[in-house]
Every structure is written in C-alpha cells, then in structure tokens.
C-alpha cells in the first residue's frame, strides 16, 4: 500500500510571526518547518504502510523550501513532491487544493491520501475536502483512528458527541486530527538518510496550471484588510461579600454553561 501525505511547511510558531503589509498574509520567506499538525498524518501513514509500501509527501511552499519536508523524510517518508512557484503567492485554499491535487498525480500509484484537519498558520480547514473534490475521491474528515482492510479504509470520525465509524472505498482522502497517533522523533540515522531522499521540485508549468489561474490572479477571495485582534478585556472581579456564589451562578447561567 502506498500513501500520499499532504504536508505544509510553516514559519516556526516559536518565532514571532509577521504579516506582509502588501499581501496581507503571513510572511513565509524565512526557514519553514513541518507543521506539527501534519506530523500526525505522516506518522499515521508510516504505521499504515509498514514495510509493504511507501509514503510520499506532497507540499506547496515558496522559495523551494524543503526544511519541513526533510523532517518528514527523516521520520521515514520515502520521497516528496514539492511545488514551488512565484506565481503561487497569494493562492487561496481552492487554488492550493488544485495544485496539491495535480502534484498528487505526480506522486505515483497511491491507495490513500492523508492530510491534517487544518494547518497551524492558515486554519482554513477546507483544503483536504477540496483536494478530494478535485480528484473525484471520497473524503472522510476528523479521523481519530484509521485502519485499512483490503480495498476499504475504516475511520473513527470525531464528532461533538463521540465518534462515527465510517467505512469508505479506496482510494480516498482522509483528514486526521492531532492525536490520531503519537508522531515519532526522527532518529539520527533517519535525519542522515533524509538528506539523500528524492524531492521532486515542480513549477506550475510542470502541472499544466496557468499562472493566471493561480496566486492573486486566480484567487476567488480577496483579503481586504488585516487588523490586530482586539485586546482581551479585563475580567470581572467579584469581591466575596457573602453573596459571591450567587453572582457566580448568575454569571455562568448568563453564559448558558449551567
């Protein structure tokens, strides 16, 4: 069994991020790292294929960035397809999905596509489902457990009340939640081996996508304005004059939490 995992390389959340005032999007010109939420998909894929298949990474990033891909390759993925093209700057979620779907087409034979539920920087949370639609594949979301049995994938799909047991024919696109499995740390030998694993770098032209349909030009959305989030207001302090419990009960019942 072969699995494709969509991974995003993002600015290190430990560093202070900055917005590009011109593009009104997150600056992504420095070193990028593997989005932690994608490490769960990579680990899930590695566990599912075991010794009888390959995990291929698919990613879209500026400036031919591979640092995050090397981390996932060090975990054990076999190879990667990276789409990097200046014309992609400003791409919206749908364009991203179209690009990743085309890149998945260059990843060889596959049985399953895994992705995170949402990225840790953009949080659109729609790309996996859009990829499925573009590829014409069934889509299962919010997987908290994934297993493959012959030609079907079985998913425990997280819901607000518990989880649904979903069975779906392969190939399919499944988005996994953080915690579906515990991601491994890349071993030293894994890190060394990752340096020589193949990363196929593609431009838009290699995917047959017109630049006019990508980036700002092709986006179906426009970011009109970006503003700092409002400062959180100070909380209400209740002095206990013997009636504090009643005020707290009122406060909570106004919030409809009790």
């Amino acid at each position: 069994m072969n699995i494709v995992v969509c991974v995003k390389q993002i600015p290190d959340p430990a560093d202070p991020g900055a917005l590009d005032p011109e593009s009104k999007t997150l600056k992504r010109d420095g070193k990028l790292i593997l989005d932690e939420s994608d490490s769960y998909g990579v680990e899930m894929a590695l566990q599912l294929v075991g010794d009888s298949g390959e995990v291929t990474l698919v990613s879209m990033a500026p400036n031919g960035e591979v640092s995050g891909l090397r981390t996932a390759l060090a975990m054990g993925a076999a190879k990667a397809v990276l789409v990097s093209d200046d014309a992609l700057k400003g791409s919206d979620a749908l364009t991203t999905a179209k690009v990743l779907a085309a890149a998945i087409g260059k990843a060889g034979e596959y049985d399953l596509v895994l992705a995170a539920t949402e990225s840790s920087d953009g949080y659109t949370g729609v790309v996996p489902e859009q990829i499925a639609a573009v590829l014409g594949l069934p889509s299962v979301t919010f997987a908290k457990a994934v297993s493959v049995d012959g030609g079907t994938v079985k998913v425990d799909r997280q819901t607000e009340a518990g989880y649904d047991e979903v069975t779906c024919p392969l190939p399919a696109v499944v988005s996994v939640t953080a915690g579906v499995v515990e991601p491994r740390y890349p071993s030293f030998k894994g890190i060394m081996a990752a340096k020589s694993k193949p990363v196929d770098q593609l431009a838009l032209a290699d995917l047959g996508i017109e630049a006019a349909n990508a980036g700002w030009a092709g986006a179906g959305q426009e970011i009109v304005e970006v503003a700092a989030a409002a400062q959180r207001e100070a909380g209400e302090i209740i002095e206990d004059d013997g009636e504090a419990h009643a005020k707290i009960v009122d406060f909570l019942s106004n919030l409809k939490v009790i």
Partner: protein
Amino acid sequence: MDFSLTAEEADLAELCRNFADREIAPRAPAAWERAECPTDLLREMGELGLLGMLVPEGWGGIGMSTIGFVAALEQIGRADQSVAAALQAHVTIGSMPLLLFGTDEQRERWLRPLAEGRVLGAFGLTEPGAGSDTRGIATRAERRDGGWVVNGTKAFISNAGTDMSFGVTVLARTGTGDRGPRFGSFVIEKDTPGFTMGPKVRGIGWKGLDTRELYFDDVWVPDDHLLGDPDLGLGQFLRTLEVGRISIAALSLSLTQAVLDLSLAYAAERRQFGRPISDFQAIQFKLADMATELEAARWLTYRAAWLRDTGQPFLKEAAMAKLKASRLAAAAASEAVQIHGGVGYMLDSPVARFYCDSKVLEIGEGTNEIQHVVIARALGC
C-alpha cells in the same frame, strides 16, 4: 581556527535539544523525585541512535565525533543531569572497552545491543577500598575450568541495576607478573550465578542515576568473556577511558548553562526595591562571571574533544577541561541558588536540583585532585 560544528554534529545537537526540551525536561523531574532511573527515556534515546554515539555504524552506532558527543551532552544535560549521566556512562566507560578491546564476536554479542540502545552498559572499576588508587583494586579473577572465577566487590557502579541493564564489564586482578600486578576486564552478564548487587544508593544529586554496589562471589565466566589481552597494562587500558573526562566536562558545561539560564530569567522577573534584581550590579556581575567562565570552560572541553577526534594526545587537555568545568559547575550552581535566594533553596526548584547534581562532577571520573596530578605530571613534575 574553526569553532563551528559540522552539519552532522549540528543535526545531532538539534535532535538532542528537541528531545531534551520536549521529553526529558518534563518527564525527568518525576524520576528524580522517585529516585528511579528513567529507562523509558533512555530506551527512546536508544531508538534515536543516542546510545551508540561513539560506536561506528558497522557495530550499530552512529559514529559521531567526540565534538558532536559533547554538543549532544550539552543539550541533554541542560534538561536533566541524571539522564545525561546515565547516557555518558553508557557511551564512554560502558561501551568503549568492548569497542576497543573486544573481538568481533564479543562486539556482535555485547557491543551491538549497547550501541543500538536495546540495553544499558556499565563499567566496574571503583571498589570500597580503591577509588583514585586504581592499582589497589582487590577484585580477583583466577583461571579455572577453561574460564575465570571472579571474586570481589565494586562500589558506586552506575547503570548496572536497571531493568535495561545487561550486566557489567569489571576490572579485576588476574595475577602478579615481573612488573607487578596484572589486570583484565571481564564481561559479566546479569543472572550469572554468584553475581548480586545491593540496593540503589542515595546520593546528594544524580537521583535518577542507578548506582549500586556489585558483589561477585565465585562468579565463573568462560574464556570468551575476557576482553583483550589479560597482560595488558592497567595504564594502557585506563587511557582508553579518558574520553569519560571529556564527557564529565560536557555535563558540567550543560549544568552551568542551565543554572545561568535559570538565573538570567529569574533575575529579570524577580523585583525588589521596585525593580528587577538584574538591575543591580551585585547580580549582574555574578551573571557576567558565570557566562565568561562558561565560555572558557566550553572551549577547553571542545579543544580536548577536537584533539581526540584528530588522533592527537589529549590526556592533559581532558584533565584540564574536567577540572575547570566541574569546578565552575559547582561554583555556578552555588551562585545560582544565591541569586534565587529562598526560592532556590527549596528542593522543588529546578535550580536546587542542579545544585544537588553539581558536587558529583568534582568527584566522578577521577576526582579533581587526580586531575591535578595528571596535569602536573604532564607538565613534567
């Protein structure tokens, strides 16, 4: 002069930094509190390749340079000294005798599991009556029935009594020749009849390190458990363990860095007389001294590691690095507690844990008095 790490060394240091920050730092304090060796962490470190740092890839290790080993220990030790102590004992004295003196069969049998991190290694040298005076060891090995019978007691032996331990390599007298006593080292696996051990001893620090007395009562091992030439000189054998001094120096660097970082953060946060105490020169000068001395000790240590990596003599430099860095660690830990005041005196504070861990650095892997002797001899005294 080039002080930068190679790409491989930097990759290893980063791996260790990540693992130390995310796994060791949160989990090790509980092991310290319970006074148990966190073998769960050591097993995970084994899977990452960290337990085979100085062993070539052909024998299951990662073939790292001594410089890379020091850089790795600096990261691990910042998070927890007991884990770093267990790791360094395994990598140096626990594995080096097998690598340097073992036959290929012995390396396959005992070194590979050590390097792959499946078991934990230990070396038994110190005895109740012989510490600095290694020639005074009383443990004896006598030839009997196509093998050797070992009798004696070893003291303060690390890593031999955990659920991950495979046994121990022990140094014993094998007889007396024309030029005095002869010595040999023997691999003695756990569960060998006659090999028993005492309870884990309690130290001021390194509470997560498993340290015990080992007892050998007519322990018979076959000939193939003897490492190398039984007539090999003791000095020649012990010289192969000199990398242990570099690794204690590296642990000392990591402890000093840890207490410096804790002190910097605390001094910026703690306010007295209306301002952070880091505004006061009395505190600033302590921090500046600590940082300056740390740089000096760091480059002594890395230079000793570089000498080893480039095949040059490093006896004197390793002793100097160990002496300087361990003294600094003990002094810096004391100053760090002073900066923290009452909070630092409380055993629940991280800086107190490092303070407790600092003293042993002046004692283990050759006391600082022995380091002085080594240095003085190298100077021609």
